């Protein structure tokens, strides 16, 4: 069973008079456990595609099956539940809550879930990104690389089926970026599906497969031949 099955997916914006077509007729499948990079220049529609795949937006036409189920009839509330339970987000600009501790930031998705033992789950997630020593720090007291690792822990805390990382290294120096990519590869090695959205080839080469989008069309879909393996950062070696 495919994790994601997209067929003739279309997305238009605007009203009757002025329709801007962002995605035309996309079709592809993503298996469970894959590490896929969606690549394309800005304006190509890759972000729109990610928003649809991660249930932040709905397609105008076409089929989107998630875990074997057609998502067309899903209610907004159910999509929110899916985002909470099946999807983890990592954003370019981290999107951590200000004036809030690292631990509370990671606990945020748990607030909207049915899971119990919030503290234990959040600590476990922070441990997996090597931030156990920063639990009670505030988000303005840690570095950019650490912020993105907090965001990774937040994405992991509800044990999602797939992690969406939207330009996760875009705001980071190369060393911190490398650490983030290392963690993503590790998560993938543990069997988790990762979908990376980026416009940088260097970043995309960390994935196993690259989908190239241009002007709303899928222009290529190929496996990465010479995959970059990120080296672990010193403070992550346990």
């Amino acid at each position: 069973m495919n994790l994601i099955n997209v067929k003739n997916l279309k997305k238009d914006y605007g009203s009757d008079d002025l329709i801007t077509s962002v995605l035309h007729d996309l079709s592809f499948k993503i298996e469970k456990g894959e590490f896929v990079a969606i690549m394309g220049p800005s304006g190509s529609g890759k972000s729109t595609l990610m928003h649809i795949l991660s249930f932040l937006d709905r397609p105008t036409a076409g089929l989107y099956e998630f875990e074997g189920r057609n998502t067309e009839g899903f209610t907004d509330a159910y999509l929110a539940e899916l985002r909470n339970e099946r999807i983890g987000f990592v954003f370019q600009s981290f999107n951590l809550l200000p004036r809030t501790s690292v631990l509370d930031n990671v606990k945020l998705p748990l607030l909207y879930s049915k899971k119990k033992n919030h503290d234990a789950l959040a600590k476990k997630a922070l441990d997996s990104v090597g931030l156990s020593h920063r639990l009670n720090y505030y988000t303005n007291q840690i570095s950019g690389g650490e912020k993105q690792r907090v965001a990774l822990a937040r994405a992991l805390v509800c044990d999602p089926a797939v992690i969406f990382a939207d330009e996760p290294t875009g705001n980071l120096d190369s060393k911190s970026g490398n650490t983030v990519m290392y963690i993503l590869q590790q998560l993938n090695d543990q069997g988790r599906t990762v979908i990376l959205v980026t416009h940088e080839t260097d970043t995309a080469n960390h994935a196993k497969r690259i989908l190239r989008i241009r002007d709303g069309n899928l222009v290529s879909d190929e496996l990465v031949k010479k995959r970059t393996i990120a080296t672990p950062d010193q403070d992550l070696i346990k």
Partner: protein
Amino acid sequence: MNISAIVKLVVKNLLARKGRSLLTILGIVIGVAGVIIIISLGAGAQSLILGQVTKLGSNLLFIEPTKNIESGAPVPGLIISTLVNNDVDALRSPSRVPHAAAVNAAVNGLASVTWGSKSIDTSFTGTDSYYSQVTNFTMQSGQFFNSQEDQGAANVVVLGSAVSEQLFGDSGVNPIGQVIKVKSSIQAKAGGIPLRVIGVIASRGSSFFQNQDDMIFLPLTLGQEQILGIHYLQGVYIKVDAAENIDQTIADVNLVLRQQHRIQNDVNIDFAVRNQADAVKILSTITDALKLFLIAMAAISLVVGGIGILNIMMVTVGERTREIGLRKAVGATNGVIRNQFLLEASMLTGLGGVIGIIAGVIISYLISLLMRQLGYEWAFVISWVSVVLAVGVSILTGIVFGLLPAFKAAKLDPIEALRYE
């Protein structure tokens, strides 16, 4: 998402902006405090009026002279001389007004009182010996004048406790037996009539906005003829023997006075009979109208406070757009976001309500202290209904004025919100 988690979150958000939160609820605080104070003062005033009614004595009728209806409303300063001593004699006839237990006539005025080198201005009542039967009071020392002294216009006077204190307090002289000089304040004539003090009435506080301790009492005809220089009365009190005979007595009094004044036509009636229940009713009507007006003012304050909440919540939603986007991305439904902001607004106003109640209770208490200091028997009353109402209304204000910002937050598009700078 469970309630306690939302509450915790909201409390944290409010505490993170303490200063702003407090300023936001100021309007609500003032509105609620206003409601509490007004209702407390209303209850205090009511208890004061009721207390004075019982102090004056129950089953009391009051007859006052009026211009007849034909000549229109009485003009301030107009002298109405229609009620005279003969009328009182007629009212005292047991065959004509059988249920009158006591009939007391009175005139009032302002007087200058001199003892030795001390001189004070006070008010006086010229009354007869029946005064003690229509009014409740006790003597501090000496006694009230009797009917012989009254009818003989004896040169005697009874002092209110405050007057006695002002005149004799410093010297330590026993006022009984001392001679004071009394003259009407409006008469330029120097000197005054020398009167011997025969009694001092114990303190009884204020009644109907007049301090009864700051008064002197002298025989009716003395007051009429020698001090005021008049031959008519300003009021007659009738004590009715039992409550069930009040209506009958009012009818009897009307009949007697119409005969005395030879009135055939209703338009020529030149007196009015009032009973205490009427007086209380009139006062209650006035205080109720005033209360309603003040509550309307307080309601306006609550609305203005609510608009303040609306304003600040809109700003808050704008400021927290990214946070709202993030919460939605990680699984918050529109409903959860809406409830979070609704709860935030209603907790703000609820807190405003609580602070307002505390402020209102404290201010009401201080006012009651002040009123007691001024000599009124003022009760400090806080009605539970007003407290519950105030909190309820303020929370409702938060919900009503929080709806718009809460729906705005709930409707935010998470993609747009996450991009928001």
